[in-house]
């Protein structure tokens, strides 16, 4: 295997190549201090490079002679039973949950997009609250990570939604036994707020940094069940000169998010904005960031207006059929829409 195929940074690779090290075997019996002197880098860096090299060499050597099963491989039959046990996070609106077959899927990346004012941030906050419903009441009892790029997260609104959610649950469960009512002490809006980890992002480099940091963060906080990014497009739409660079950064970010969703079995919800597109002689609205971004998510939900009612439409999903459902935004959060309901003012 060549040096070029190793996962090291470009500057380290160019230093190695200019010093004459082109193959793995040339680095195999080299001491770190010798390498550091040759390449004019720190000893720590040389140690890291040699570790990557020895890992790669181990992998190619250990497969000689004896059979090694591929790691991480599962048969479709095993995955079938796993898929049926997959967890969902309820959105608060029964119609929406119905078309999603239970709610937002854990282990997948869902993109939600819509025109301004349709309720994307409201849906994000609602999901961050709903994931904390205790297990005894049919929820997950997990924590949430909310990454805010636009500054549209309002703590008072989150408090209101948490209150609405708790009251709704207690109303449904008033005639249950004492064991369940025992956890009523920590069913307070403040404790719900304390389980939401909030990151405020002010530039696209910070967004990339947070995505990289999330892996470590999630290892320390194993209870996190949902990551909401609101919105993923904001810093990439203005002032980005190099569109090819933008595509590269976005596709790299989406791969990392998919890996996080799969390995930690949590739901990742990305909120997106809309833009106009000119095709076949007419303008119509599509989600921002272009065609290449549309491949980066597993599920896609589009929110739109239809005669004074808010609707959600499933645009892309590996296992759900296309459908749409109405919902409404009330003072308690996202709920089922009542048919005569007009555009509701919040607060």
């Amino acid at each position, binding site marked *: *295997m060549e040096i*070029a*195929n*190793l*996962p090291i940074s*470009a500057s380290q*690779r160019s230093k190695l190549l200019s010093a004459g090290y082109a193959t793995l075997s040339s680095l195999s019996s080299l001491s770190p201090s010798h390498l550091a002197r040759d390449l004019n880098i720190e000893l720590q860096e040389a140690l890291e490079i040699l570790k990557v090299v020895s890992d790669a060499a181990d*992998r*190619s050597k250990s*497969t*000689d002679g*004896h*059979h*090694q*099963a*591929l790691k*991480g*491989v*599962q*048969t*479709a*039959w095993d*995955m*079938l039973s*796993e*898929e049926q046990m997959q967890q969902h996070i309820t959105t608060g609106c029964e119609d929406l949950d119905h078309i999603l077959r239970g709610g937002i899927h854990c*282990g*997948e*990346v869902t993109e939600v997009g819509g025109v301004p004012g349709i309720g994307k941030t409201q849906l994000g906050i609602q999901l961050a609250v709903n994931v904390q419903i205790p297990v005894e009441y049919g929820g997950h009892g997990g924590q949430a990570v909310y990454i805010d790029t636009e500054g549209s997260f309002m703590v008072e609104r989150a408090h209101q939604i948490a209150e609405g959610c708790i009251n709704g649950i207690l109303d449904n469960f008033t005639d249950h036994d004492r064991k369940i009512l025992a956890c009523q002490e920590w069913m307070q809006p403040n404790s719900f707020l304390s389980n939401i980890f909030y990151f405020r992002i002010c530039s696209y480099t910070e967004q990339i940094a947070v995505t990289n940091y999330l892996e470590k963060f999630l290892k320390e906080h194993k209870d996190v069940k949902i990551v909401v990014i609101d919105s993923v497009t904001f810093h990439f739409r203005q002032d980005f000169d190099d569109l*090819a*660079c933008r*595509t*590269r*950064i976005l*596709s*790299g970010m*989406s*791969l*990392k998010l*998919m*890996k996080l*969703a*799969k390995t930690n079995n949590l739901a990742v919800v990305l909120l997106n904005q809309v833009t106009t597109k000119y*095709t076949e002689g007419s303008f119509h609205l599509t989600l921002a960031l272009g*065609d*290449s971004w*549309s*491949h*980066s998510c*597993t599920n*896609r939900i589009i929110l739109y207006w239809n005669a004074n009612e808010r609707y959600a439409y*499933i*645009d*892309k*999903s*590996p*296992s*759900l*059929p*296309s459908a749409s459902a109405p919902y409404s935004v009330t003072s308690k959060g996202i709920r089922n829409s009542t048919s005569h309901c007009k555009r509701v003012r919040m607060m």
Partner: protein
Amino acid sequence: MLTRFRVEGEGERSSMAENDDLGIERTASIQNPTKPSSSIGARVRATHDDDEDEVRVSLRPVLPHSSSDLIHQEAARALSVMDSFHQPWLTGVELLDDANRNKHVLPTGLEGIDVLLGGGLREGQLIEIAGPSSSGKTQPLQMQVCLHSASCIADKGSVMFLDTCNSFSPNRIACMVNQFSGPLFKEAKERRLERIMSSILCQPIYDIFELLDTLHQLESTLKHTVKTGGYKICLLIIDSISSLIAPILGGKSPQGRLLMVSAGIVLKKLAHEFNLAVLVTNHMVGGEGGIIKPALGESWKNIPHVRLVVSRDQQSNVFTATVLKHTMRASGRTAKFVIHN
């Protein structure tokens, strides 16, 4: 290309030269050991035009009084061991024989595509399917084609699915498998489903380096199973390779293109050596004049053997496939096919 082999041992020298039908001259010389109890440690050196391979071969001990026949026998044995390290050229007849015997055609189950491809996916080839993503439909079309092929081919051998976008849906495969089965009792259906689903293996991959690692591991696993006669993989699907390559392609360094081409080389080598068909999916990007074209650029165009573009007709279940490139058939032909829900 002239290849010379030289076998050296200890003791007295005796040499043998041979010219086989390919005109390759091989010489083997074994020296007799001075001590009767030691075995001949022969050092074999093979020199080609480009590089040298040196291998240690140990032979039976040859006593100083042994006849030259025994020495020649041992030399012949050394030469046969050397043959296994040296890969001879294949003649056209041998290639045709290999193609007829080992490289079968795997039908995808979608009639239009099978007609375009001349029967289906051919083992030993790298086939690319490009298509636009969600344009008013729920499932990406390329993924549907992949799942369809997987469920059809899983009957004949194992299918390995490398999934980069979490789009592998066991439920959907189960639906497709149940569509093909004729009238069977419930238990028989269940058993058939289990048998087919157990021969589809899925692994999530999120990194180009992970992909290269997995392919190298797969290569050594397959080499091992060829000897032991274990299960046979006949189809390898990567959905989608463009999402792995897009983050590294472009920019000032050619590293991304290098990794893309290396991945292509490893895939084609796997396909040819182990007789499997490799199916990769790609997405579309906007080109000049608003016409969409497959992603990954000009360098990728030469890598797959067969390239197809699929698209959907106006919100219906009917899809169109166009051949962009094929090694054995004319390009530009189209066909329609239907995927049922």
